[in-house]
């Protein structure tokens, strides 16, 4: 390998055959380049008449943003095949980089395109990527790697394999629609919204557009444009309610009953919101024996009310 200064314009940056990382230089990275330039050499290889970047995409992008024209480069012998060259890029990054699912999918795609066989990919590469070493995982990753538009979101929000797999079950136009809705949310919210939409679609045998056009959801999506995080919570609560109508209805009825008790402020009534447990918990906050007596008396007095009976009936209710 030859270490030399290279002109950035010597590199054909259009040729991205070895690129599989999705990160871009952040403020800190750029500041460091401004201070001390690029110190660690990027790796390049000659292909036909031009140089192709093997690793160091972030450094090159950073150098360009900082107006540098040259940077140190390590030229890899051109007799190395694309597969060998890519393996070099992969393992170099592997040692100091936690790959996102998007990057893992691109790595697998490159290995596959450069001729690494399925058995090798499954038994050698997937375990390195800490993914289940199965053909199915490989197929999911390859499919994912083709979703150019979605990969930045999958990378930035650090999606996990099950979320991606479910996402792939939507047809392409619905994926686009969903991404336009959830791209700015946290991964957890994205995951839950995808799951809820999937469940509703299948249960109601409708397409995503029809669900989104429901008045309650549509008005919520309108608000999305103004204040996404707040509207996302609203959307989630509408979807959860649609997916769990029975539990929601009963919880609302129970909350209504509890609201009518007018218990002292130092008493809190609670219950299991999955309704799995049928008992009620009563939390009493007191700091003296006298206060405890007074509070217990108030609770005892309230026991005469019909609401308690209704409350327990609701907690023990059988679906009609």
């Amino acid at each position, binding site marked *: 390998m030859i270490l030399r200064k290279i002109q950035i314009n010597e590199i054909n940056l259009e040729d991205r055959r070895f690129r599989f990382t999705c990160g871009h230089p952040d403020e800190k990275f750029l500041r460091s380049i401004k201070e001390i330039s690029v110190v660690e050499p990027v790796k390049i290889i000659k292909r036909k008449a031009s140089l192709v970047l093997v690793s160091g995409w972030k450094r090159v992008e950073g150098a360009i943003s900082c107006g540098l024209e040259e940077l140190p480069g390590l030229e890899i012998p051109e007799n190395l095949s694309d597969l060998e060259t890519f393996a070099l890029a992969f393992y170099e990054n592997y040692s100091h980089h936690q790959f996102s699912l998007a990057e893992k999918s691109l790595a697998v795609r490159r290995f596959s395109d450069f001729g690494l066989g399925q058995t090798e990919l499954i038994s050698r590469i997937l375990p390195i990527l800490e993914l289940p070493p199965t053909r*199915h995982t490989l197929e999911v990753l390859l499919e994912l790697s083709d979703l150019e538009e979605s990969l930045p979101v999958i990378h930035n929000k650090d999606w996990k394999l099950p979320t991606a797999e479910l996402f792939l079950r939507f047809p392409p136009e619905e994926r686009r629609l969903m991404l336009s809705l959830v791209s700015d949310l946290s991964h957890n919210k994205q995951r839950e919204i995808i799951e809820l939409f999937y469940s509703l679609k299948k*249960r109601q045998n409708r397409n995503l557009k029809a669900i989104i056009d429901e008045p309650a959801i549509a008005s919520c999506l309108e608000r999305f444009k103004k204040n996404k995080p707040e509207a996302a919570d609203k959307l989630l609560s509408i979807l959860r309610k649609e997916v*769990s109508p029975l539990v929601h209805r009963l919880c609302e009825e129970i909350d209504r009953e509890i609201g009518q008790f007018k218990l002292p402020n130092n008493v809190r009534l609670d219950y299991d919101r999955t309704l799995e447990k049928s008992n009620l918990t009563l939390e009493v906050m007191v700091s003296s024996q006298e206060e405890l007596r007074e509070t217990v008396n108030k609770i005892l007095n309230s026991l005469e009310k019909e609401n308690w009976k209704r409350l327990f009936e609701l907690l023990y209710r*059988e679906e009609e």
Partner: protein
Amino acid sequence: MMTRNWIKKVFLDRKVEKSPQVKKILDKLIGVPVEVVDGEEKIKLELRLSSDSVGESKKILFLTEQKAFIRPCPCTPGCVGCGYWTIDLDINCPLDCSYCILQRYLEEQPLTVSVNREALKNELELFFEQKRTRLLRIGTGELGDSLALDELTENSLFLVELFRKKPSYFLELKTKTAEIELLLKIRPEPNIVLAWSLNTEKMVHSEERGAASLEDRLTAATRAVNHGYRVAFHFDPIIHYPGWLEGYERVVEKLFGRIPVEAIAWVSLGTLRFPSDLLTVARRRFPESTIYEHEFVRSWEGKFRYPRPLRIKIYSELRRMFSDFRAENKLYLCMESSAVWAAFLEKNKRGRLISAFPFPWLS
């Protein structure tokens, strides 16, 4: 179901190559390629290379040996247990139910048959020695279907012989097949119970790939009863779908149209439940199935279940259906919380809450 027709390949553990039981099995699989291996790694790799490793695992037979066979059924933490014990003689199942938990538990596990029956015999003798205090139920249908591979292994015959003259140990052979020919050739015993999992015709058709039809299961059960066997039934998983009530009503009517109440040892009820990690596999493997898109809650042990009010409703409807045939006291709930048991027993006015077994009518 002719299991031997769809076994694609046999892997033979070198350790049992000389076993007479292996020879017997291989004689029934003429034409199926056999490869001798030193352990499971090679098989696992082959399965990993398949797009549907679960589906593929059901076509590969692995003949091996095992150290221990008997264990208490783990039930589910927080559930009322039924004191069940299991014998894991065959692991994995050639049938393919959309709700089967084994899809997750036994990924990359071929149809595994342990041929070192002598070890099981010794373990069982020790077990009988140690557990002498009360009635016990023990079955082979926990990690597979008890009879789906019976045509090849004849394990049912071997087991029945071990349980003869052991009246306080019930051997339950639980199946979704109609494979009872071998069992019809031998003398039944009161403690040998042949059990069928039942579901509505619609669910059998859409969710239980490779299983016998409801009609065939009931015909097999009728033949078993006529031969003198005690039978049991498992309504598990009960699936809630539009038309479920009429569906299960028809199953119960058909059941009692054929089987006398006195021939029934027990009937379990259990609604659909599954751990969250089954979802990804099942949705992928059964894209047409809609059973996973129902309203569920995450229950105390992390499994998804129908909300409690719905489960109580389902159980009480089934109880009503059974009481129409004076058979409600044969019922118990499988893997249910004490809250649901309490609601169920309140209506049933019998039994205790600590354990669903021993059943009063058997003791």
